[in-house]
């Protein structure tokens, strides 16, 4: 399908970058900043006129497209039917729920602290300011079409659901998500709703709330769990919920100004005209809030408002034993760790796709060579002619190219061809100009030497082909060697881990160790529930403490395991046993890090070998083709010269050259 933009310029689609219910999104060849949304079936007329209105609005106010995937230009096929539109490419952004859901945030935005969340909230407000300024209503505010980047900037996608007026016509949103729909619109028919700024402001307030309050919805759903009902009844009950559940962030952790904005956005009176706080008010107060956030001295990932106020996050962690902010810890690789075998398969597939250079055994002599050699062969038995003087004939043109051949023969084989060609041409040129007459004997010797050169070129081809095959064989062998090292990583690591983890208690010490219970042991930092978890699993005294038995106990962190093992080892030392170098969890982590590093190195090395192999084959093709071509050229030049000599020896007139 040929696509044209609004200015009838052809638009060439590149790779598919996304796929949804309505169609696909493709790259645009020649413009990395744009993508094309192409509908699976041509959109209905009302959608086309809305997209057209949006493209017109963009042409009038290009800043509308700055932060969102605004339709910029319609795309038509040859028949003029609208098939989709062009919009800005949004890349490297994630849905906003990946940021505000705490556990997901640790994986997707590991460095994001509370001020980052506040900044993102302010950027959401900035987005709404920029749209509301032009009377564009987002309408369908939700957690899937708002995206966040690593720098806390936000983007809006699915902009074809925006509500806007153009040329006296109103284009509605038509859809909506309950969580972000204000009380006055709950249960209404979205297709018939005319959205207002005040409606958008509710959705914005919910998004801001979720960002600041760890993904919690301001209306938790109350006794029925039904969010729609809770919103409809204005049950903004987070304050009472967080009073009951002390592990929720209290509303007092934010500035009273921002708190007042939430109240204003969610109270029953907020349904009145323009009653909810504007995007601009959110923006100003969120910026101010963010500026007041300071790191907590206990934990560099915690942020709180005043230097002397208690840190809400420290308090929550003490209550719940859950960290809302934590850097991802490196998971141990597990006993059955395997290197990335699928990566090896990919590399192997690439390897299979690289052709080896030509096999010397497959060499076939060019037909012109056989013919030239035959022509030279019949000159072998020629006797010197009776009238030597008549054997001075004019030689010109290609004839003296032979001289070039002579010169080249003396040269080292390396520069053979280039020199032969260059000197040959030069000599031939000189000969043509001077039209020297060459004696018969000299001509014969020249032809014979030329024939010798032909043989050398063929030998040279075979020699090069053997050398190239050898390089190819060596590189493939190298790849196999690396691949087997790669596969062996798993077994090598298992041995190393096993050796490190071997943690046996000497039989003589057992009865001594049995005197010390885990429950009462002086193990720093080990909470009562963790001790209980160990008891349940039969680890009652120090004699039961063995690293492998501790590994699977839920809640027991690597640091706790180290502490428990260190406790037992200190008791062993008390009993007079030789103090062993304590093995800690970080030793295991170091082994894992090393193996991940080795895995990467081997993958890189295999990749390099593939690159060398590719270029070796390309070079081989070039060298061999070149030699073959020169052999053919030389043969083609030699044959007429030999034929001419034969003709002359038979007393016939030569062709005039």
């Amino acid at each position, binding site marked *: 399908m040929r696509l044209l933009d609004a200015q009838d310029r052809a638009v060439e689609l590149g790779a598919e970058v996304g796929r949804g219910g309505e169609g696909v999104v493709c790259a645009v060849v020649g413009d990395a900043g744009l993508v094309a949304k192409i509908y699976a079936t041509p959109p209905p007329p009302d959608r086309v006129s809305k997209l057209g209105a949006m493209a017109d609005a963009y042409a009038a106010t290009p800043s509308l497209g700055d932060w969102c995937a605004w339709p910029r230009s319609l795309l038509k096929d040859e028949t003029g039917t609208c098939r989709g539109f062009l919009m800005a490419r949004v890349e490297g952004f994630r*849905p906003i*729920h*990946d940021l505000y*859901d*705490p*556990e*997901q945030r640790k994986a997707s935005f590991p460095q994001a602290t509370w001020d980052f969340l506040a900044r993102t909230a302010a950027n959401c407000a900035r987005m709404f300011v920029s749209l509301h300024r032009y009377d564009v209503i987002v309408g369908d505010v939700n*957690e*899937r079409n708002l995206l966040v980047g690593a720098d806390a900037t936000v983007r809006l996608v699915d902009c074809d659901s925006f509500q806007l007026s153009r040329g006296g016509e109103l284009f509605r949103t038509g859809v909506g*998500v*309950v*969580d972000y729909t204000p009380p006055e619109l709950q249960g209404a028919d979205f297709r018939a709703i005319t959205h207002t700024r005040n409606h958008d402001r509710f959705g914005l307030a919910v998004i801001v709330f979720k960002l600041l309050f*760890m*993904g*919690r*919805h301001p*209306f*938790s*759903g109350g*006794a029925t*769990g*039904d*969010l*729609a*009902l*809770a919103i409809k009844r204005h049950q903004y*009950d987070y304050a009472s*919920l967080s*009073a*009951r*559940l*002390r*592990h*929720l962030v209290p509303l007092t952790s934010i500035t009273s100004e921002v708190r007042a904005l939430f109240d204003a956005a969610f109270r029953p009176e907020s349904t009145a005209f323009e009653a909810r706080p504007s995007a601009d008010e959110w923006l100003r107060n969120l910026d101010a809030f963010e500026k007041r956030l300071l790191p907590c001295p206990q934990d560099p990932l915690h942020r709180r408002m005043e230097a002397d106020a208690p840190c809400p996050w420290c308090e929550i962690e003490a*209550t*719940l*034993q*859950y960290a*809302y902010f934590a850097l991802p810890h490196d998971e141990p690789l597990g006993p059955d760790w395997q290197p990335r075998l699928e990566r090896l398969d990919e590399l192997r597939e690439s390897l299979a796709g690289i052709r080896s250079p030509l096999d010397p055994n497959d060499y076939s002599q060019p037909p012109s060579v056989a013919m030239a050699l035959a022509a030279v062969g019949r000159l072998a038995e020629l006797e010197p002619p009776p009238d030597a003087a008549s054997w001075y004939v004019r030689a010109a043109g290609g004839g003296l190219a032979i001289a070039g051949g002579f010169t080249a023969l003396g040269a080292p084989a390396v520069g053979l061809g280039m020199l032969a060609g260059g000197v040959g041409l030069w000599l031939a040129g000189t000969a043509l100009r001077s039209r020297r007459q060459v004696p018969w004997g000299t001509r014969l010797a020249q032809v014979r030497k030329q024939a010798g050169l032909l043989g050398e070129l063929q030998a040279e081809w075979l020699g090069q082909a053997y050398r190239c095959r050898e390089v190819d064989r060596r590189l493939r062998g190298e790849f196999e060697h690396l691949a087997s090292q790669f596969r062996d990583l798993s077994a090598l690591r298992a041995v190393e881990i096993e050796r490190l983890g071997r943690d046996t208690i000497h039989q003589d010490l057992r009865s001594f160790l049995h005197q010390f219970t885990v429950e009462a042991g002086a193990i720093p930092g080990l909470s009562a529930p963790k001790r209980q978890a160990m008891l349940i699993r039969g680890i009652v005294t120090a004699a039961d403490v063995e690293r492998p038995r501790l590994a699977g106990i839920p809640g027991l962190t690597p640091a706790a395991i180290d502490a428990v093992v260190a406790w037992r080892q200190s008791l062993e030392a008390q009993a007079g046993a030789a103090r062993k170098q304590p093995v800690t969890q970080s030793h295991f982590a170091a082994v894992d890090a090393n193996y991940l590093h080795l895995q990467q190195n081997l993958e890189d090395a295999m990749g390099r070998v593939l690159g060398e192999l590719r270029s070796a084959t390309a070079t081989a093709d070039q060298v061999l083709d070149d030699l073959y071509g020169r052999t053919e050229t030389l043969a083609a030049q030699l044959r007429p010269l030999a034929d001419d000599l034969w003709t002359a020896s038979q007393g016939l007139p030569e062709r005039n050259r």
Partner: protein
Amino acid sequence: MSEQIPFGAIEFAANPEPRCPCVLALDTSSSMVGARLDELQRGIAQFKNELMGDPLARKRVEIAVLTFGGGVRLASDFATVDAFDPPALHADGLTPLGAAVLGALDLVKTRKNIYRSNGIAYYRPWVFLLTDGEPSDPWQAAARAVRDAEAQRALAFFAVGVGEANMDVLAEVSVRAPLKLKGMMFREMFQWLSTSLKSVSHSGLTDELPLSNPAVPEGWAKL
């Protein structure tokens, strides 16, 4: 006491998304043994995979598996899709369908209490019953309980019959017309279920169930 840490507090602190609970009540009586159980097992694994592909459904849909074959057993308690580990199923014994349905209703009720005490919103729970036989226990009380729950919109109950299932009993138990699985189309059935749950967990609509009809010629069921 006004300050509490309810059961599941960490789970809901880590992921406060509204939940969409779904109980799979599966007949594992001895008649299910063999290919039928294998296909069912594969269907469940695929069910998880398909839901994992949806970033929101992955965090919102919670699956519990209740099996009834001989006795009623909670093979897997409620877990969000990413934490759900499809249990291995074993076929054995009779078909205590009545006890299983009551068990599923109970499971849902308990789960809803946990959501409420943690201040987590939820969608109408789904109970998906699958059986291939004749109930071996009284089922009338279960049928009444399902009707009551449906009337209060407390849950949505779906019944699917396989092979020689007694469709008349299923029609008594389920308010919605029970569906008859075509042949061994377990995977198609679970694909329909995951698609339905995805759209429910996105829409936020609590009253209507935006479902496609599986009892069409190319679908996996017949009425």
